[in-house]
């Protein structure tokens, strides 16, 4: 494996992890823009734009784009988060050049009115689909309430109203302002010659507009609160909770990550033994979400409505215990073994490396090999976790519950 990096004149950063021992190559454009970068009038535009990118350019229709990707057998897609819009493809090395040309080309799409109007319906359907998933709805509402007053509260999908009101002109303006080469990182992982990557990038990306947008990354200071959303026809109560955690650039993030495995992994964690093993809950998990400048521990619980208050109190006690007494050496050792194996398994495929390669660069301007990750993991101590907990104790500051209950 070899790491490579270059910055084009217009500010586009290219990072590569070249591995001749695999059979495919994955690449992606990580655009540093997402829901948090939207102004209130255009809520949902980043995600809608992600769909519109595949509608083509002056020389390619939407059908052309779909057809061309399929002709080379690309595994391709895109995703939008609060902070990053990612366009990626995994392909066989012999098709790299044409797939690269295609994906690079559509990054600057025509955004035609008729495509915009049809795709608007698809976005509204996507909003409807998530509306029928209580766990996802709880997450959306929680982001909105926990980060209220902070850009991270802004919805990725937008609302039915904001999407209906959005115009193609607003989207064009958003694209002009945010799709600047300095906001974009190209990451490439797998079996490809670095020189080929450079040639293609020079050929297809050099004319992209230079520039970079600023993002206010002041750490959020959530005030907490509880929202209960009764939903008729539901059977289980779906509860999501958040409390502050280390931001993405913080060195404390490794401790936060391993702690979330010890406390809230879906098997053999504290929450598992306390709530899942006895059959009290269908799901009880703790995750660590890191963002630019902020972070959140997120608890998720799904259980019988009548057990909700009791189980939330039980989780609270468990968190108090962790905050006071930390975790045991044995727990840490076990979690390290589990995570180390996860890292190795995930890294075997280029697609598995792409997201780590791109995110490390976008968030931290850093390359971390699989060995770096394993070494950091190996060196973590229970003291590191205690240190992190002093600053970011586990908590249940903000709560959103969706289900049969009227109140908690």
């Amino acid at each position, binding site marked *: 494996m070899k790491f490579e990096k270059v910055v084009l004149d217009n500010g586009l950063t290219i990072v590569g992890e070249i591995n001749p021992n695999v059979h495919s190559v994955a690449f992606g454009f990580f655009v540093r823009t997402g829901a948090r970068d939207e102004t209130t009038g255009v809520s949902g535009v980043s995600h809608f734009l992600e769909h519109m990118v595949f509608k083509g350019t002056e020389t390619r229709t939407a059908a052309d784009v779909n057809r061309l990707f399929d002709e080379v057998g690309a*595994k391709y897609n895109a995703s939008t988060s609060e902070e990053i819009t990612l366009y990626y493809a*995994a392909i066989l090395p012999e098709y790299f050049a044409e797939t690269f040309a295609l994906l690079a080309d559509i990054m600057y799409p025509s955004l035609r009115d008729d495509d915009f109007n*049809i795709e608007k319906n698809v976005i509204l359907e996507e909003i409807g689909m998530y509306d029928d998933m209580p766990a996802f709805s709880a997450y959306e509402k929680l982001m909105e309430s926990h980060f209220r007053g902070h850009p991270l509260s802004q919805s990725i999908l937008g609302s039915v109203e904001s999407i209906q009101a959005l115009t193609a002109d607003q989207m064009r303006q958003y694209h002009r302002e945010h799709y600047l080469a300095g906001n974009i990182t190209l990451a490439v992982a797998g079996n490809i010659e670095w020189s080929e990557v450079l040639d293609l990038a020079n050929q297809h990306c050099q004319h992209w507009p230079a520039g970079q947008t600023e993002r206010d990354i002041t750490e959020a200071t959530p005030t907490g609160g509880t929202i209960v959303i009764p939903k008729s026809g539901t059977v289980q109560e779906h509860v999501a909770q958040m409390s502050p955690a280390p931001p993405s650039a913080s060195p404390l993030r490794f401790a936060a990550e391993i702690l979330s495995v010890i406390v809230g992994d879906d098997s053999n964690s504290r929450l598992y033994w306390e709530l899942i093993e006895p059959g009290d809950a269908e799901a009880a998990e703790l995750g660590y979400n890191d963002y630019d400048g902020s972070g959140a521990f997120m608890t998720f619980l799904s259980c019988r409505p009548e057990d909700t208050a009791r189980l939330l109190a039980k989780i609270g006690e468990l968190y108090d215990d962790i905050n006071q007494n930390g975790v045991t050496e044995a727990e840490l050792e*076990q979690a390290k073994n589990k995570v180390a194996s996860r890292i190795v398994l995930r890294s075997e495929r280029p697609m598995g490396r792409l997201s780590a390669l791109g995110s490390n660069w976008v968030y931290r301007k850093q390359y971390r090999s699989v060995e770096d990750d394993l070494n950091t993991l190996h060196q973590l101590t229970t003291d590191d976790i205690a240190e992190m907990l002093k600053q970011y104790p586990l908590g249940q500051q903000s709560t959103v519950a969706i289900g049969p209950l009227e109140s908690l």
Partner: protein
Amino acid sequence: MPEQTIVLHTMANGVTLIIEPMAAVQSAAVTLQLPAGVSHEAAGKNGTSALLGEMMLRGAGDLDSRGLSTALDNLGVHHSLSPGWFHLTLSAATVATRLPEALVLLTDIVRKPRFDADQFANCRIGREQILRSIEDEPKQKLMIELKRRCYAPPYNRPVEGSLKDLEGISLDDLSQHYQRCCVPQGAVIGIAGRVDPEQLIEQCEKLFGDWEGELPPPITELEPRDKSGHLDHESTQTHIGIAYPTVPVRHPDYYRAWAAVSILSGGMSSRLFTKVREERGLCYAIGASLNSLRDRARVLCYAGTTNERAQETLDVTLQELANYGDDVTESELSRCKARAKSSLIMQGESAMSRSGSLVRDWFHLGRITTLDEIRDRVDNLTVEEVREFAVNNTAQQFQVLTIGPEPLSCQGQVDLGALE
């Protein structure tokens, strides 16, 4: 295609061991299938198989539930035990150097589950929670109910179990199901990754060689079944499921059937995606897949769409299915081949997907197809063959099921001829 070696070893007691060494990976993956899926459950006890899978992970050999989890984690073994319509499947993966120790634990899970009574009570309550949660996910519920309507019992039993049967399942039932179905005859172990086949055969002989038991009795097919076409749910979208017959993996026409579905729904230039989503914006999620049991198969389609557009979505989708066949183009088939080629090569990069394929092939075909062979079969497909298959196998009757606030005009058994 990457070079492939496949080693097959049959033990005296009937256990089949299939090994594929992979030089380019660091990991090893194991897929172990036991003929203990839902079709083998006793009547009125749907959920036995799912409960058995959970109980097998809650203590085995000398280790109690916590001891077993800890031992697996310390070896970095990612694992799951999932019930299927025919099998109970234990899947596990870890770094290859840990495989020999991991195999000892996996063997205990299969051969020496503890079946502690208090664990069983917890397991059953936990299963009830899982089944209740499915009630809150209309899409998931739709696909379970669609299968219930398009296959005959016992092939149509939900692999997750049923709330109505759960209460009546005892630890005794579980234990009987285990005795009857978790046996070496019919057990298949697929292992792929950075492994030495000779050493593995030797170790597996030690671990499984003295295991005894006869194949469970054959499944008796029963009369169908619920044909109703709509389930009320206070959802934002109407979730539409459509099923129609196709051929199973073992059928000589399977690759044609596979290509026909792939052209309908593989990739974003596929028929359904283009006609229903891209051109009309009727839905976000739409797709079709080939669901193959041993001797029968269905194409299962799904579309999720807001209620006011649901009727149009269903009509357009059925029209597409009805008119599909003799209009398949050369370029559609060539895209289908390109996607297959890259999927196959990427599969060759992953020990986990290879070990899964080994046991699936064995079950469906009684032999292993190499990636090269699959590629040849796909490459040799002609447009005429796919067209002919699609035309001759265009279903006259679809099973249509919807979940949402209002029923749609076509539901239950829908006759294609009546639509045209």
